[in-house]
């Protein structure tokens, strides 16, 4: 029942639930030994499901920012040297339960937060992150992990200054994914065992994920961007919003 999209709001500790997120600060209890107040850098997250075009947009945005003189650091989900081998191993062996998976990803995120994101913010970089904690919250939420617990777990994350959510509908997404690289096991939520048909599973899983993201939009102040439009259109909108934010 807990993965019903219309389930009542959680009672977690994330301030976002009360609408008092402070960009650039920890969402909740944070990391006591790493005070981050007053760091000059900016954290910008690009969120959205697989195949929505996040990495293309990030490349273009980076170019544009650097031309304008901003130092840019990119980071992504599941890229820390500490955890990458373990996560790959876990994915390939398909033996992990959902709770262990959530915690592995949280460990990976903590490593990147402390070693990449926080130092870059301290040094005044614009940090572009390809996915952020919302991906983890969405995936785990779909798999029935307690939402309040998830938000407490990620209470040590820093609230981005801007979160762009590249929104797409399942029909358009299916077309794009099939045109490019095809559907894979994890993106299709095959671990949820909705049946052997990868197309049906992909469709059902991505639908649930999209509902999960939608339910977070208000809570975490997403700036929703229509990702069905052309790359150029989307990039224009991102640049306009980022530009207004950095140089009001």
């Amino acid at each position, binding site marked *: 029942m807990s993965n019903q999209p219309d389930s009542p709001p959680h*009672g*977690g*500790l994330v301030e976002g639930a009360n609408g008092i997120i402070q960009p650039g600060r920890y969402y*909740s*209890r*944070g*990391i*006591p*030994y790493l005070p981050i107040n007053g760091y000059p850098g900016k954290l910008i997250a690009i969120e959205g499901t697989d195949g929505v075009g996040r990495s293309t947009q990030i490349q273009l945005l980076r170019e544009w920012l650097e031309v304008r003189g901003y130092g840019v650091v990119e980071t992504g989900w599941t890229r820390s*040297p*500490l*955890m990458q*081998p*373990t996560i790959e*191993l*876990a994915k390939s062996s398909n*033996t*992990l*339960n959902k*709770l*262990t998976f959530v*915690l*592995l990803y*949280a*460990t990976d995120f*903590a*490593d990147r*937060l*402390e*070693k990449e994101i926080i130092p870059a913010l301290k040094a005044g970089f614009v940090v572009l992150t390809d996915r952020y904690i919302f991906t983890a919250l969405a995936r785990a939420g779909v798999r029935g992990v*307690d939402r*309040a*617990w998830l938000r*407490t*777990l990620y*209470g*040590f994350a820093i609230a981005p200054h801007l979160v762009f959510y590249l929104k797409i509908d399942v029909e358009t997404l299916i077309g794009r994914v099939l045109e490019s690289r095809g559907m894979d096991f994890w993106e299709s939520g095959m671990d949820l065992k909705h049946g052997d048909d990868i197309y049906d599973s992909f469709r059902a899983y991505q639908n649930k994920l999209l509902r999960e993201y939608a339910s977070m939009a208000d809570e975490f102040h997403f700036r929703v961007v229509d990702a069905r439009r052309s790359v150029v259109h989307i990039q224009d909108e991102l640049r306009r919003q980022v530009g207004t934010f950095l140089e009001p």
Partner: protein
Amino acid sequence: MLNNLTTPHDHPGKLFVVEGIDGSGKTTQLGLLAKWLAAEGHRVFVTEWNSSALVKAATKTGKKKNALTPMTFSLLHATDFADRLLYKIIPPLKAGMIVLADRYAYTAFARDVTRGVDRQWVRELYSFAVKPDLALYFRVPIDVSVDRLLARRVKLKFYEAGMDLGWSASPVESFRLFQGKVLDEYDRIVDEYGLNVVDAVGSITEQQRVVRNLIARHVESVDIATEIPSEQSA
């Protein structure tokens, strides 16, 4: 919010936990307890902190490069624990067995907070854990624990001695400082989670007598529980 760790479980088995710093003698006591329970005819499963195959690799990489931060150290251990809980601890509990855990979530509370992790956050992190039927805390003064470890010529391990915190270049001194603070955290935990304190300075046999007396109150009910269904079906 999950509250499993503070709510009694409803599995037919029993979960007993030993806690304490290195050199408190808890592992010795657990071994003797396992022997006794098995001799009494119980099916016993023993599980250790930090022993799951899955994250051993990552822990090793991290330790080798000294790359773990207090947060990643904490989360890695929670990952390991979750893996063990779901694959090793809960199934025997469901099967009505006795599970003996050498260290449990309380170890994380004590160590991670000493390393600088938020006290409330780590407690909520582990809120998915099963509440033990009985948790024994072997309380020992830091000097006694250091003497025991040195007498056994144990090489103090990097993280166990808190060397990652850089408080002292000497492993023994670092261990003393770090575990001294861990003891303070345990004192809080004892009150908060109702751990049973065992004076770990006394003789091994004397301590084991105390332990068996405490456990005996819980294992009787295991026998009763396993007998009831057969009487009902008869």
